[in-house]
């Protein structure tokens, strides 16, 4: 039997986890009806994934996108390791936050639903969050900008239609909105949002659902191994880099800037590893270019490395991010093959991205 290629989106919520999936021949993701209690350890993930009908072996999952309520280094590594332990190949595993999942979902719908701005209201026991998706073209770049705000004044146990109407007017009046998505259990309790819904539905298309994030993640997972259609967009939202980081190099005797991480990349996945041979330089120059056009330069001294003949040192230069604002560059001595053995020397440099800049 021919092996299927599975793409899976997993929304690991605070309380429950939802699974959506796509495989060959499907045009849209399916969501499992079952909601799985989010476990303390990642062993619960295996149970969730094995519930996918037709999936016989977890190694058949070619792309999996995990949505984490809070994307931290520790949580991302735990989730990634859990997938590896289950036999899912490392290159198939990706993590993202809720904001990114929202964007993937919105962009996967027909274009008329995101011609203008798109609004999301996420209402759960943790409160109500308003997100606005706005698309802007800058030359050849299409930026997808998602802003969000926690709304106060809407109580989960006793939500006020009047208050919600007031907030909706405040954020949406006299604006062109293509679609509104109402997400979360808060909108499924008795029909409380009558007047506000009437307002929202006026000249806009409104959708209600509980599985927007898991579906968005599944779309993203599927796209990774098929069209890569989302690569044309520059994501400007939580968990995406606000700046590009490059290193100044010489290539064929011409000065160039080699990008190690690009703005719009997911910070956890924005990692680079290169090797370079310094040519009569005493420091490396790293350039940080923010999306609003500011540029700063960070220097890393090479004085810790031994003096050798010209171009007789190969350096390993790596960049990883530990958060959206904080990257770490590590430079390690590799010697020069069998001509010069490597010494156990490495230096590090913090790279900070200030979103306020």
């Amino acid at each position, binding site marked *: 039997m021919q092996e299927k290629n599975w793409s899976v989106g997993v929304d690991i919520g605070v309380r429950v986890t939802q699974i959506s999936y796509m495989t060959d021949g499907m045009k849209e993701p399916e969501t499992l009806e079952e909601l799985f209690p989010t476990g303390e350890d990642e062993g619960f993930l295996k149970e969730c994934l094995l519930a996918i009908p037709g999936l016989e072996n977890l190694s058949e999952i070619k792309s999996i996108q995990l949505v984490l309520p809070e994307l931290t280094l520790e949580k991302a590594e735990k989730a990634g390791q859990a997938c590896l332990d289950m036999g899912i190949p490392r290159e198939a595993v990706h993590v993202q936050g809720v904001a990114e999942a929202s964007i993937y979902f919105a962009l996967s719908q027909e274009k008329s639903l995101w011609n203008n701005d798109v609004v999301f209201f996420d209402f759960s026991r943790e409160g109500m969050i308003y997100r606005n998706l706005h698309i802007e073209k800058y030359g050849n770049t299409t930026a997808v900008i998602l802003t969000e705000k926690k709304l106060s004044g809407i109580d989960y146990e006793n939500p006020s239609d009047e208050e919600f109407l007031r907030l909706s007017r405040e954020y949406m009046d006299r604006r062109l909105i293509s679609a509104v998505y109402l997400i979360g259990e808060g909108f499924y309790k008795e029909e409380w949002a009558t007047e506000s819904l009437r307002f929202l539905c006026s000249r806009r298309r409104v959708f209600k659902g509980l599985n927007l994030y898991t579906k968005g993640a599944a779309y993203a997972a599927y796209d990774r191994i098929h069209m890569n259609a989302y690569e044309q967009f520059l994501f400007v939202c939580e968990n995406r880099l606000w700046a590009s980081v490059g290193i100044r190099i010489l290539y064929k005797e011409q000065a160039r800037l080699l990008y190690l991480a690009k703005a719009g990349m997911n910070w956890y996945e924005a990692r680079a590893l290169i090797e370079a041979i310094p040519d009569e330089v005493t420091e490396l120059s790293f350039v940080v270019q923010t999306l609003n056009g500011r540029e700063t330069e960070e220097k890393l001294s090479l004085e810790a490395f031994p003096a050798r003949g010209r*171009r*007789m040192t*190969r350096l390993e230069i790596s960049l990883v991010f530990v958060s959206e604002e904080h990257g770490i560059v590590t430079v390690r001595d590799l010697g020069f*093959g*069998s001509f010069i053995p490597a010494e156990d020397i490495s230096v590090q440099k913090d790279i900070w991205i200030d979103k306020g800049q």
Partner: protein
Amino acid sequence: MIAENKIEIWSLEELCYYLYENAYRITEDFFSQELAEYLREELDLGTVADKLMALKKNEADFLEYILAVCQVANYYGQEELLRLVQGLQAFAVLSRPERLKQLADSRIKEHLYAQAVREYEAILALKYKEGYDRSFEGKIYHNMGIAYAKMLLYREAEECFKHAQELLEEPEIRKNLLLLYYLAGNTRQYEDTAALFSEEERQELLEEWEAVRKTAKVENGRNEAVIEKWKQEYRAEMS
């Protein structure tokens, strides 16, 4: 990884470095099928491998092989490659003894003194077969003397310098003899040779040697250890 002269080469940059530093020694045979396969399989440089094989088919000059690799490697700049080309072109028109002398001289720069001595002796053995003049022979003896002196084998160095002096009228040879006696602590010979220089010349030389001596860091009590170490290395080279 390819093994050549017991050097393992693991990257295109190292290969480029090896070719550049040994350009005067390698021949077209170095650019073998095995090298092409290594470039293709290990370094993912199929286009370079194909180019080398095409050059081989056309029996190209070995300089073209070197440039084919170095231009892809981006390790040396255009000026450096031009210097290499010019150097190799000048080398190619030299007589065989002159080429061998250049190679032997490079051994001294590489601190391979015993190897240098062997190569100079080989050149001297070619004297009647290849034919060269007294001046050239004198230069061979002079440089061989340098190699011996670097190994602290002063007696052998002295013999070479004296041979050179008979064949070649060069003030440099007398200076090197003087330095040799100075290093060896041979006071009588030093004074006899020093008498051939003016007071001013002697003073200048002393200052020059003192600066060199300091950088060489030969200290009291270490000389014997250093000498023994070099002699052991010499014997190892000769065996």
